[in-house]
């Protein structure tokens, strides 16, 4: 047979517990509150979770187009910069390349004219010496 608690003892104990818990206050931790709310869905929410899970299962068979990889690679190739050509090189070096080419052309022309003149002089001298010999 168990001993029954004295009602006055019980009242005193409840009063002590009330005093001991009087300072309890919410922690202000909203994240923890939201986590608990999220973990305990109400009945309609449970239905919603179930339906979403079912829709997840029903959409497992979704597949991309067979040409997806080709489309991606095509986009990447189109967006790649073109390989540099000789013309690109000349236009990048710009004024320096043009000045250098002009100087080379002028020097070549001068050399050609000088050679032409020397050759003419040599021919004239040759003809003169032949006439003197006759």
């Amino acid at each position, binding site marked *: 047979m168990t001993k029954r608690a004295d009602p006055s003892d019980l009242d005193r104990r409840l009063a002590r517990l009330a005093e001991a818990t009087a300072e309890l206050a919410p922690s202000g931790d*909203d*994240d923890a509150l*939201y*986590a608990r*709310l*999220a973990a305990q*869905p*109400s009945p*309609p*929410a449970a239905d*919603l*979770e179930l*339906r*979403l*899970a*079912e*829709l*997840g299962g*029903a*959409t*497992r*068979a*979704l*597949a*991309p*187009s*067979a*040409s*997806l*990889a080709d*489309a*991606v*690679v095509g*986009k*990447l*190739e189109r*967006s790649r910069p073109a390989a540099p050509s000789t013309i690109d090189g000349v236009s990048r070096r710009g004024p320096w390349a043009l000045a250098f080419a002009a100087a080379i052309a002028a020097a070549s022309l001068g050399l050609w004219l000088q050679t032409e003149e020397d050759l003419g002089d040599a021919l004239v001298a040759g003809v003169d010496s032949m006439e003197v010999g006759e």
Partner: protein
Amino acid sequence: MAGGDRDGAAQDRAVDLRLLAARVERGDLAAFRSIVEHTKAPLFRLAARLVGDLAEAEDALQDAYVQAYRALGEGRYDGRAKLETWLYRVVTNTSIDTLRRRRERIGEATREARHDGLVSAEARVALGELDALLRALPPGERAALVLVAVEGLSAKEAAEALGCSEGAIEQRLVRARAALRTRSEERQVSDDEAG
């Protein structure tokens, strides 16, 4: 990341993908094509569930892969997370951008890609129902709900995918569920009045 619906990639395949990623960093487009072929199925499912439309999902996935290729080329994948996890994050963000653009241009059809994959009628109907159910939610709340309730991610994994705190995910879930519950109750009332 251990999502309930993603393919359980074997460790050796993960190693291969990292090697492929290293080759892509040196500009190897063929290696990137291999990455696309290996990862496209689960990532397409993710994009489709997030945006709720096959053609828009195809578009979002293509954009995500282009962004991923550039990021790999610029050395922005540090290799700390598995490549699949990193790509999962890229696709999630691209899909959210797609949802935001959709809200900005209601009624306009500016899709580039067309989806011609083999999809069962049941899967199409289910995707349509999922989109109708979630259409009214803001993109961030919709994404949180899809990642947790449809993809089967934990709050921590969803937070990693969306680049926010777990607390933010929980808040979005509470708001999304409350909005859907309210909508469902309103529809019930209007059905009762009509009946």
